[in-house]
C-alpha cells in the first residue's frame, strides 16, 4: 500500500522525440501483444505462398503461351493480390476498430490526448509491419514463381532491368492497402463496416469501373488501386492506363487521403 503514496515531482518536459518514441512503443507493444495478429499474418503468408505456387504451376504447365500481361513479374503477384492483401487489410482495420469496440480507445486517448499522434503512431507501426511483411512476401512469391516457370523458359531474372523495382513495389502495395484500411477503421469504428469499406476501396471501385462503357472504363479505372498496382508490378505497362511513375503516386495518394480524412474525423469527434 505504501507504494501508492509517493508523488512524482517530475517537471522535466520530455523532448518531442521522446514523446514520439513513447507513442511508437505504445502502438508496438499493443500490436505484438495480441497473439491473433501473428496467427493471421502467418496464415496469410501460407495462403499467399500456396496460391502463388498453384498459379505459377498452372501457367508453367499450360501449353499455349500466356498473354503478355500475365508474364514476368506480374504472375508472381496473382496470389499475393488477394491472399496477402485481404488479411493484412483486415488486420489494419482492426487496429482501430478493436479499440473502439472494446472501449480501449478511451485508454489510448487518455494516454495520448493528441489524437494526430495516435493516428501517426498506429500508421507508422501498422504501415511499417505491412511494408516489411509485404517485401518479404513479395520476394518469396517472386523467387517461387520464377523457380516454377524457369523450367518452361518463361521466367524472368531479378537482374533484368525493371524487375527489382517491380518486386519492391509489391511490398509497397501491401503497405498502401494496410494504411487505407487502417484509416477507414478509424473513421468507421465498427469492424464489419470498416472491412466492407476497405475492400470496396481496395477492390470494389476497380470492379465497378470495369462495368462502365469503354472510354470511361480505363479513364476512371486507372485511378483505382488494382490498376495502379498492376502498372507498377508489370514489365509491360498498359498504354491506356497511367504510367508506372504516376501509378505509384496514385498508390500513395489513397492512403494519404484516407489518413488525412481519419485525422480530421478523430480529432474533431468525441471519443467512442
Amino acid at each position, binding site marked *: 500500500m505504501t507504494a501508492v503514496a509517493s508523488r512524482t515531482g517530475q517537471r522535466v518536459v520530455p523532448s518531442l522525440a521522446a514523446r514520439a518514441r*513513447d507513442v511508437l512503443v505504445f502502438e508496438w507493444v499493443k500490436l505484438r*501483444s495480441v*497473439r491473433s495478429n501473428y496467427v493471421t499474418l502467418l496464415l496469410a503468408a501460407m495462403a499467399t505462398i500456396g496460391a502463388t505456387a498453384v498459379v505459377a504451376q498452372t501457367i508453367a504447365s499450360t501449353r499455349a503461351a500466356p498473354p503478355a500481361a500475365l508474364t514476368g513479374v506480374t504472375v508472381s503477384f496473382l496470389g499475393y493480390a488477394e491472399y496477402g492483401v485481404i488479411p493484412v487489410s483486415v488486420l489494419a482495420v482492426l487496429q482501430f476498430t478493436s479499440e473502439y469496440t*472494446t472501449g480501449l480507445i*478511451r485508454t489510448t486517448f487518455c*494516454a*495520448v*490526448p493528441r489524437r494526430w499522434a495516435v493516428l501517426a503512431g498506429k500508421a507508422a507501426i501498422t504501415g511499417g509491419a505491412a511494408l516489411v511483411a509485404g517485401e518479404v512476401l513479395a520476394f518469396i512469391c517472386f523467387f517461387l514463381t520464377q523457380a516454377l516457370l524457369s523450367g518452361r523458359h518463361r521466367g524472368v531474372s531479378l537482374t533484368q532491368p525493371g524487375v527489382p523495382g517491380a518486386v519492391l513495389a509489391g511490398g509497397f502495395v501491401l503497405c498502401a492497402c494496410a494504411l487505407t484500411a487502417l484509416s477507414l477503421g478509424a473513421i468507421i469504428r465498427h469492424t464489419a463496416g470498416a472491412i466492407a469499406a476497405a475492400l470496396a476501396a481496395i477492390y470494389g471501385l476497380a470492379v465497378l469501373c470495369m462495368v462502365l462503357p469503354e472510354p470511361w472504363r480505363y479513364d476512371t479505372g486507372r485511378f483505382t488501386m488494382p490498376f495502379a498496382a498492376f502498372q507498377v508490378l508489370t514489365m509491360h505497362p498498359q498504354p491506356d492506363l497511367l504510367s508506372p511513375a504516376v501509378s505509384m503516386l496514385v498508390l500513395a495518394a489513397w492512403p494519404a487521403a484516407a489518413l488525412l480524412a481519419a485525422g480530421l474525423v478523430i480529432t474533431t469527434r468525441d471519443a467512442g
Partner: protein
Amino acid sequence: MIELNGLTKRFGRVTAVDDLSFTVRPGRVTGFLGPNGAGKTTTMRLILGLDVPTSGTALVGGRRYRQLIRPLRQVGSLLDATAVHGARTAYDHLLSVAVSNGIRRSRVPEVLELAGLDSVAAHRIRGFSLGMKHRLGIAAALLGEPPVLMFDEPVNGLDADGVRWVRQLLRQLAANGHTVLVSSHLMGEMALTADHLIVIGRGKLIADVPTQSLTRSSGRADVLVRSPRASELAELLTARGAAVTPEPNGGLAVTGMHAPAIADLAAAHGIAVHELVPRQPSLEQAYLDLTAESTEYRATSTAAGAEAGS
C-alpha cells in the same frame, strides 16, 4: 486539483452537463454523486478530454487535459474497467499503458502487486472476473503515480473484499495528499469513503458540501418509540407539541421532543416503554431529498452556502 468552470455539454437537444462549476481539492476523497444519467460519466469524460465541451472549461492542475504532456503522470483514471482488449495479458496491457507515457517498466510489476494481480499477470484479461478487471483498471490508473485520480463507479460489481480494498486505497491516496474524485450512485458507499460530496442531478450542481454537513443540514432527526400503550402515549406527546407519525411496524416516529423528555413523560404517566431510539437522518435520505429536488429544477441554497463556507 480539478477545476470546472461553467462546464456544459449538449448532445443534440439533450443537455448532459449543465453549467457545472466546482473544484476538487487534494488531500480528501471527493464523492461525485448523482442518480443514473445525472451526467457523472460525461463530466469525467470532459475532464479527460475524451469529449469536447459545448462551453466552459475543465482544468486539471491548471491546464486542459489535452494540453498535458505525458498526462498519465498527472491524472490517473478508470472510467470503464471492461474497456480492455481480452486477448492481451494483464502485464502486456499495463506495459503498453506505461510505455505510452514514458513510465519505467519496473513500475508494472509494482502496480500488479499493489492490485493483488501478480499471480495472474501472465493471464489473458479475457478470463478475468469483473472484480479483477476493476483491480487491473485501478492498477493502470496508478501506473504514473499521478497526483490526481479519478474513478467512475469503482466499486460497482465488486465483492465485499474488493469494495474494502478500493475504499482503503482511496482513503490512503487522499491521506497522502492526492486529489481523489470518485463517482457513485450509491450514497451509502460514499458515506463510508468520501470526506466531501459533490451532488449533481440532470447535469446541474445540487450540492458541494462536506459529507457530515449533508446529514446535519437535512435535519430529519427523530426518535423511535415503542410501547404497549402506543396510542395513549401518542396523545400525550402530541399534547406537548411533538409531532408523532405511526410507523408500519407499530412504532412511533417522534420529532420535536428529545428521547429523555419522552421517557420522563411516559414514566410520569406510568406507561411502559419497550424501545426508545434516537435516529440520525441517513445520508441516503439526505441524498434522496436532494436529488428529488433536482427533478423539479429548484435552485440550490445548499451549494451556494457550501461554496461561501469553504
